[in-house]
């Protein structure tokens, strides 16, 4: 069964057709990317899939279950989580607390009113701190982290939700070349070792071609090409509207 299936999804803002009749599928275990120039509708597409926006029409299925226009928290509970493009963390809480909050939520412990949170989910939180390379910043107030570390924390929070399907909106935006490689290697490991199905958007072509197994190219809200990196690179339309002289 397809882990994600999108049928004829449409969303417009005023006169702007931000998502124009997009149909899309993902197999379990896939590591796929969506590329496209700024304003192509990548983030809007993510926002529709995760309940941030309501679709005008079209349907979204997760493992056969329709989730079109569900509330964000319902979608997350089903097993889909996301990292945002502009890091969306808890700036006043410590790095440790940021991650623990996601884990406690996944463990359905957040309606516990009378036991101290301090001793809870220690092992799981430490583990994620370790995986995301943030162990030495466990007690740092998250708002004081560097941009790159905020993005890593953003990813760690998304992982704390224990998703089956993970959306990463420009996971390496604002990172140095070294950080970018580290992050993408982590993404690859999550996909290979934990079997996480991951869909990410990216503007850096080298990153995309190096990691994604499947590519989808968006332009003006519509899909103009789909396939493995080799196919997409050869596609004439893609070369014209996006890759330009580069290809």
């Amino acid at each position: 069964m397809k882990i994600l299936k999108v049928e004829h999804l449409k969303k417009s803002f005023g006169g702007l057709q931000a998502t124009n009749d997009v149909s899309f599928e993902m197999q379990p275990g896939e590591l796929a990317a969506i590329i496209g120039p700024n304003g192509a509708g990548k983030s809007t597409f993510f926002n529709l899939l995760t309940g941030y926006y309501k679709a005008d029409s079209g349907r979204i299925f997760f493992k056969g279950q329709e989730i079109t226009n569900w509330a964000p928290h319902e979608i997350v509970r089903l097993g889909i989580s996301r990292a945002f493009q502009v890091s969306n963390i808890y700036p006043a809480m410590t790095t440790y607390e940021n991650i623990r909050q996601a884990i406690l939520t996944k463990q359905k412990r957040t309606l516990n009113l009378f036991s101290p949170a301090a001793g809870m989910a220690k092992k799981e939180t430490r583990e994620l701190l370790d995986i995301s390379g943030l162990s030495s910043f466990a007690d740092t107030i998250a708002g004081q982290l560097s941009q790159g570390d905020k993005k890593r924390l953003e990813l760690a929070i998304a992982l704390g939700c224990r998703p089956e399907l993970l959306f990463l909106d420009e996971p390496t935006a604002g990172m140095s070349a070294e950080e970018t490689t580290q992050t993408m290697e982590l993404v690859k490991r999550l996909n290979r070792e934990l079997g996480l199905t991951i869909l990410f958007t990216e503007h850096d072509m080298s990153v995309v071609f190096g990691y994604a197994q499947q590519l989808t190219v968006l332009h003006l809200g519509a899909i103009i090409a789909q396939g493995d990196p080799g196919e997409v690179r050869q596609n004439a339309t893609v070369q014209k509207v996006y890759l330009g002289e580069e290809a």
Partner: protein
Amino acid sequence: MKRSFWLVLVFIVALALPSVIGEFWVHVAIEILILGLFAVSFNMLFGYMGQLSFGHAAYFGVGAYATGLLLLKTPLPLPVCFFISMAAAGLAALVFGYFCVRLTGIYFAILTMAFGQLIYYIIFQWYAFTGGDNGLQGIVPPGWLLNVRHYYYFTLFIVIGALVVMWLISASPFGHTMRAIRDNAERTRFIGINVRRYMLINFVIAGMFAGLAGGLLGPFNRSIAPDLCNWQQSGIPVFMTVIGGPLAFFGPMVGAVIYTLLFALITGFTEYWPLTIGLVIILVVLYLPGGVLGLVQKKWIPLHSKKLTPGPNGGAGEEI
């Protein structure tokens, strides 16, 4: 450890207080306890959830009227009346909170105030049931509480019990979820929390403890008036919390001590109480933005100083 030392000290002082001060000041102390409980319950919304309620007196008032009416019209024992006060205030908070938690910021404040005024006018107009603007008179506590010093200890233990429960809630996963909502509601939604539902639960809890505080008031004053549901009354916990510090659990309690003592002292020789408290608030807002406890935390407990520096492995380029 340092905090527990201060708590024990305050507890001992609170126990010894009635034997060293006169009856007038015991009255003031009871008022501090009741209003302090009211303010701490308010701060569950303001400090922990990040929303300013300007109608919290409504739930205080519902609690006060519930216990007042029950004492006047039924033979129920006082503790049962308090439970009913909490339930009644919680129910009112559930009904009105259902709408309020759909909004945030100034709109939340205005809607809580509007509902607060609604309750005020109902109580103010409903002569047959609430006595209207005459209020309720002759609310007498049971015999063993007629002595004001006894009533002080009774109030002290109830308030401590309520504070312990609220303290536990603030340290629980639920309490941390409230902080998360305050810090970033959108992120909280996207980790799987139904933010409105959690805000509503918290609104009800805050309403219940305001109701308990209200319940304590009637048998203490022997009378209640609709004014205690009014929006001016809703301003009192706001002032107390701003003075004491919204980001510390005991901040509103400290604010209650300062506010109530000032009131008792100032009104003794001048009628310019609003002017005085206005000046205090201006000074606090300008020079002590974290309130008194905020200053204490900053000056004497360098709470986060450790946490701001990265660990020995340091930098952003650490191995994944």
